[in-house]
């Protein structure tokens, strides 16, 4: 029997009213995400990936359908501090140093001072920014800011991690290393992860489930359960199963594009 899903969406729709025609950002999206799943969302830009993630996190209210997280509404889950969220833009607070930015959610959640210091140091190292804790955001390069924002979401141990193109601004090498680190973290903690990416190999490498989306209206066109084992060395990317899955994702993506 399937374990009961952590996140369960039924016919979720979201329409933005704009000055001219309303935008159907999501239409009839149904999806179940089980505990410990690593779900990637992939799709052309504007297909509603960010919007769906925001709905899960309770930052946006669907205009139709139902969405539950751990059996609660997303809003209740948000209040229960179920989420770590990495936004598409770094969004660091300019009046705090990098270390201060990472410590901020910890302060809010009431972690003790020594605990905070220890966690900040650990995640700064994880994203390879050890020496930059004392700098202000505007003194960092774009990729470094992005990494700082990842570190911030990892510093506290939320059960559900939502990441919106976290590695978009990073080079292949760092990206690979962070992919590995993320997998290790996931294996160790059993977090449930929702992950938006534009990289097909990244999606295939990381996920247990790949959700392909398509725009106008934003909807799910394919859900691919990964045939790969949970243990994934980097070399797995040369395996036949990997290449085959990547191919299927690419086909799904292409189909989504063919509409315009």
């Amino acid at each position, binding site marked *: 029997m399937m374990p009961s899903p952590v996140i369960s969406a039924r016919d979720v729709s979201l329409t933005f009213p704009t000055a001219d025609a309303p935008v159907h950002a999501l239409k009839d999206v149904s999806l179940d995400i089980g505990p410990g799943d690593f779900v990637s969302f992939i799709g052309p830009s504007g297909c509603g990936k960010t919007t769906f993630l*925001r709905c899960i*996190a*309770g*930052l946006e209210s669907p205009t139709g359908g139902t969405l539950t997280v751990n059996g609660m509404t997303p809003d209740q889950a*948000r*209040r*229960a*501090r179920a*989420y*770590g*969220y990495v*936004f598409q*833009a770094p*969004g660091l*607070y*300019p*009046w705090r140093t990098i270390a201060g930015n990472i410590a*901020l*959610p910890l*302060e*809010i*959640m009431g972690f003790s001072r020594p605990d905070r210091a220890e966690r900040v140091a650990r995640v700064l190292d994880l994203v390879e920014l050890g020496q930059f804790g004392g700098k*202000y955001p*505007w003194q960092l390069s774009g990729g470094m800011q992005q990494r700082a924002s990842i570190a911030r979401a990892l510093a*506290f141990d939320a059960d559900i991690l*939502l990441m919106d193109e976290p590695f978009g601004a990073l080079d292949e090498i760092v990206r690979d290393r962070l992919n590995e680190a993320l997998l290790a973290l996931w294996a160790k903690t059993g977090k449930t992860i929702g992950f938006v990416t534009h990289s097909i190999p990244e999606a295939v490498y990381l996920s247990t489930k790949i959700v392909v989306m398509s725009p106008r209206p934003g909807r799910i066109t394919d859900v691919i359960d990964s045939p790969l084992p949970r243990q994934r060395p980097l070399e797995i990317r040369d395996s036949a199963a990997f290449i085959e899955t990547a191919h299927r994702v690419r086909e799904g993506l292409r189909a989504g594009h063919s509409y315009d």
Partner: protein
Amino acid sequence: MGLALVWLGLWGANARLANLAVTAEWERLRRFAVAAIFGLTLLTVWEMAVTVFAVPQVILPAPSAIGARFVAALPMILGDLWQTLVKGALSGWLIGAAAAVLTAIAIDRSPFLQRGLLPIGNFVAALPIVGIAPILVMWFGFDWQSKAAVVVVMVFFPILVNMVAGLAATDALQRDQMATWSAGYWQSLLKLRLPAAMPLLFNGLKITTTLALIGAIVAEFFGSPTRGMGFRISTAVGQMDLALVWAEILMAAIAGSLFYGIVALIERRATFWHPSQRG
């Protein structure tokens, strides 16, 4: 004609000085020098105008006469300064600023209050000081307390307006982050909205430094003990001692600029991250 020449000459020197490349250590001195030369230009033109057009002393005294009077009457002027600036203006400014900030937070906290209090707050704070001053003198007595009360009323509105705008000055992404961490109201106030409000808050604080001084001085026109800058000015006008009037104004200008400068300095420290401060 001569006046215009003096003006142009000194302004030219100033422009050159301002655009000179200098090292960081000299920057401070340079700023001071530029402002000073500009002031000197004004004073020279003033002195020359008074002499050339033979303006009577009782209308506009020459800067030299004002300077002499300033030095001679310095102890008295300092006493007046203490009474008006420190006792009246400063205490009123602090109370008013605190009240405005707290009100802004209360307004921001409760949509009910926001809709109910803001329009009425605007209204109450728009009561002109010259009208309230006599009433407050009647209520709070002749000494500095009534002056402080006038200052409170005067500085409240500008700070409130700026603070309310400041509390709204966060961007959507920053607010969303707070939401994902499920920050409580006070937490997001303390960690996000207050820091983000600082640039606008200081805007209000800076504007009101000068208002506070004016308020305290003006309130003394409506009743005061026999000291204070407002008292001295009005009495001196009545006695045709215009040099003393201007000496007091000079003191007010120096003290007020200092007051403003200190607040601006604190602003620089507190909002170092804002683009307007990063140059």
